[in-house]
């Protein structure tokens, strides 16, 4: 056997275990989901039959789906940009000559290592009508109590605020890492030229951090579509689906309503969203990151 051939075989043998798991739990189910979305649910009496685009037509006509889709987009837009902005601010503060910066960095980062379920438990008490912390503070200021999580107008916003609190410190880390690689002489030169802090940020730091911002943005968006844990504690997607998100709706459809075909169709919608964002990443970021 030629040494080349032997090294191929070694490589494929090394890849085998991971390949089996990846195929079994990512590629095969992804393809299976697409196939399933084109068929009806089979029962013992009525076998599954080809449905074509019927399930997709059902998705488009489903008022709950429309609400869920709108919520999912709103949730992404309402959590990702604020969290990233805060993260950048935090990183600039912690990276500068702040007094007690280690402690401040610790404070910003701590929510990241808490489980979402625990965080939701704590925040649930803030939002409880009447006795909750938010209403108690409101009382002190003479504001009427409010059922924050029970009101369709405020429930999603409440979850978004909590999510921003939980995630900002995580994104801060990426900015901190990036800030440490910035050339200090560039900023020093600008300072000697008499540029103010804001000018330095706007003209030098921010543009140099752009690749990081894009990277964090894409990954935060991808992540936001999977962030459904708080719903299990806070709202169960209610009131009247006002906080229902796509992955939670998939969970409900699959495990509470046992509608496999419809769950598969919804999953294809989610996969399409993820793939769209991922493709943007490859298109935009590949010019910078070379995977070698």
């Amino acid at each position, binding site marked *: 056997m030629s040494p080349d051939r032997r090294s191929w075989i070694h490589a494929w043998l*090394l890849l085998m275990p*991971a390949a089996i*798991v990846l195929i079994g739990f990512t590629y095969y189910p992804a393809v299976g989901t697409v196939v399933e979305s084109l068929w009806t649910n089979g029962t013992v009496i009525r076998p599954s039959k080809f449905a074509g685009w019927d399930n997709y037509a059902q998705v488009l006509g489903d008022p709950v789906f429309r609400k869920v889709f709108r919520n999912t987009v709103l949730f992404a837009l309402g959590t990702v940009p604020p969290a990233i902005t805060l993260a950048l601010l935090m990183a600039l*503060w912690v990276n500068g000559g702040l007094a007690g910066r280690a402690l401040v960095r610790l404070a910003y980062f701590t929510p990241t290592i808490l489980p979402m379920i625990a965080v939701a438990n704590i925040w649930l008490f803030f939002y409880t009508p009447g006795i909750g912390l938010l209403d108690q503070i409101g009382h002190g200021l003479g504001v009427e109590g409010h059922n924050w999580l029970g009101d369709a107008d405020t429930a999603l916003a409440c979850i978004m605020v909590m999510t921003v609190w939980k995630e900002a410190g995580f994104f801060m880390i990426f900015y901190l890492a990036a800030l440490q690689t910035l050339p200090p002489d560039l900023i020093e030169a600008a300072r000697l030229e008499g540029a103010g802090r804001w000018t330095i940020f706007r003209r030098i730091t921010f543009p140099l951090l752009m690749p990081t911002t894009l990277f964090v943005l894409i990954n935060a968006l991808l992540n936001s579509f999977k962030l459904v844990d708080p719903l299990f504690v806070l709202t169960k997607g209610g009131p009247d689906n006002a906080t229902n998100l796509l992955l939670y709706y998939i969970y409900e459809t699959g495990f509470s309503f046992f509608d496999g075909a419809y769950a598969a169709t919804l999953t294809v919608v989610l996969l399409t969203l993820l793939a769209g964002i991922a493709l943007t990443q490859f298109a935009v970021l590949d010019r910078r990151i070379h995977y070698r």
Partner: protein
Amino acid sequence: MTKNGSLLEQAGAWLLALLWLAPLFYAIWAAFHGSAHVVNFDLSAPLTLDNFALAWERAPFARYMLNTAILVSLILAGQFLLCTLSAYAFARFRFPGSETAFLVVLLQLMIVPEVLIVRNYATLGELGLIDTFTGVALPYMASAFGIFLLRQAFKGVPRELEDAARVEGCGTLGILWRVYIPAARPTYLAYGLVSVSYHWNNFLWPLVVTNSTETRPLTVGLALFGAPESGVDWSVMSAATLLSVAPLLVAFLLFQRQFVQSFMRAGIR
């Protein structure tokens, strides 16, 4: 304006830090006081440990903690093994289709196992792995993220080290074990910490797969404990929440630098 920024900015940074810690402080305060005092926000209330005792009594938190520890270790062991082997193949072997295969692996960064819960649950059913540790752990073992990180680390190892080991008679796996794994130790630490924090906190997939006290991790146990039907009051709930986050939180406070640096290292990809 000085290099350190204005006093106003310092104050802003500290205020934000306090705001960020407030929920956790509040939970700690609530856990050590009676629920009547907590609802009234009575700062002079006496300290008590009853809430912890009650929480510990009403739900098998010790068991949940053990389950989480087993689960996290199992996942980490699996990830280290599978990702090391694949990363080695991608970093040091030339074989047809390697570029394509690597891109296909990277797809998993977008499609995590949770997204395909319905299908993956069915697969576990066929394998007879529902309500087992292996069932919860298996889908995460081949992590594209881990493969990516380790491949980067292995690529940074000088070829001369490998050649020297080969001269001394090491085979393919011997070189991996003697040269590459020791050289990538910081990456293993970084990836390990990120993985442990992720899976200690993971919820949706374990919720779906587990349905008994013997397998249920902390997050799922805590969600059950906090369900409105269980009629638990705030102080006990806070105590239970603290109990569940305590191990990771204490580890984080002790090894703060390593945690933050690991997340940073894993972040610069």
